């Protein structure tokens, strides 16, 4: 099965870490990216670059900022292959954000 691991964190948390801590965590993120069971993923940066788009009656409405103003925002994701939910939960637990105040949402990918 495939799972999306959605990484939520608070704005400004990353900047609170020292350079050495950031480097160590970046290496952990890269290690997950390099795992053969990781099929994709992205670092989505912070909300200041987000643009929200809606189409009403054929008219495109574009606004600055995220879809919803929340404390925790989607900062990135992985798409992984796992035998079952337990395996996906274990990978989620290795994501640095999970143990530094962030939250990982594990979502099975629906097969069509």
């Amino acid at each position, binding site marked *: *099965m495939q*799972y999306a691991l959605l990484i939520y964190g608070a704005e400004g948390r990353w900047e609170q870490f020292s350079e050495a801590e950031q480097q160590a965590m970046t290496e952990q993120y890269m290690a997950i990216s390099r795992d053969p069971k990781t099929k994709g993923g992205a670092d989505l940066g912070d909300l200041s670059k987000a643009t929200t788009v809606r189409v009403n009656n054929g008219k495109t409405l574009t606004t600055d900022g995220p879809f919803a103003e929340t404390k925790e925002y989607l900062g990135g994701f992985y798409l992984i292959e*796992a*035998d*079952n*939910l*337990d395996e*996906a*939960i274990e990978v989620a637990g290795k994501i640095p954000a999970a143990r530094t105040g962030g939250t990982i949402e*594990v979502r*099975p990918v*629906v*097969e069509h």
Partner: protein
Amino acid sequence: MTSQNGIKRTPGQSPDVLHSGVASERLETVFREEWSRVLATLIGVLGDFELAEDALQDAIATALERWPRDGTPDNPGAWLVATARNGAIDRIRRERTLARKTELLQRLAELETDDDSDEPVPDERLSLIFTCCHPALAPEAQVALTLRAVGGLTTTEIARAFLVPETTMGQRLVRAKRKIRDAGVPFRVPPEHLLPERLDAVLAILYLVFNEGYVGTTAGRLVRGDLCEEAIRLAKLLAVLMPDEPEALGLLALMLFHDSRRTARIAADGSLILLEDQDRGLWNRDRIAEGDRVLARARGLGTYRIQAEIAAVHAHADRPANTDWPRIVELYDELVALAPSPVVELNRAAAIAMAESPDRGLSLIDRIEGLDDYYLLHAARADLLRRGGRHEEAAASYRRALELATNPVERSFFERRLAEVGQR
């Protein structure tokens, strides 16, 4: 309604034959005994709770037609597996759109069934228990699913026990079963590195079932014995399936000791009777003896085991004055060391109050942090103040407990005590 794998289902289409009144009592007992074992085997093959339950319901319906006529087979479990398997094959063959059709048929074909066999059906109930209590399911869904799949209770019975409408309970069960399938919750006993954490979850769910029966946070009746019985039945099953697990034995012993006091806790008018005021002649001696035997087999430290030991000390005091409070304090010391929590501190303080003096207990209670909204803290304070003759302060604490307590039986107990201290 079409579920994601393409099997069309109408809720209520598979009649709940187990308790429909169609089966004789003897047959119902057979079905009840075989239910979880057969269901676990079918889920193991099909990887799908709904498909497995439908197949088993069909097999039971067939059994209801044939067994009264042809006699009950020697090995009813094996018969039910074989019949459910054949029924599932027919059912899946008819489905054109089922995504996993080929795979499912292959797996069913590989399931060796021999309804003439003397061998019991291989026991996969432990996998079933761990899957039902998977932390990816909400606790109320874990409870409902465990009672349904492992306990064999009907949706109606579970809804009644938890005082929710039957449709709500039905939806809760369906959602849980589909999440297990669609989110890939594995059907297995967790591997070694996950086992301690997952076993804790299983024990917590079984204790929750027991406590819902024993304390009943919402019910007008204080004790709903059927849930206590069911929790004990499930804990016994777990202790049989995990014979070397001290906490499985500890939990079972704890339930047995509590349950021995079930009838003594409630007065004829439904009000609560505290431990020290109970008629100890009403305590169920068989339950206590059973608790002793189970506890003697539990080796190693564990929070349930220690709590069971505490309950055992109470069970063996022929009157309140003979309670070995110093021993209880020792056990609470062990519990605080093993699993510190404000609630354990509170219980320890109450035990010290009994072993030494109310004032000593009070000063400990006042040092506990984080329990200001916990009604039992205020109830314990009130009780110690009352014992120490400080009636006005006791009244204030009973009022605070009343603000926070929800169980009507416990509330009326606090009201009585409040009236008592108010008169002095």
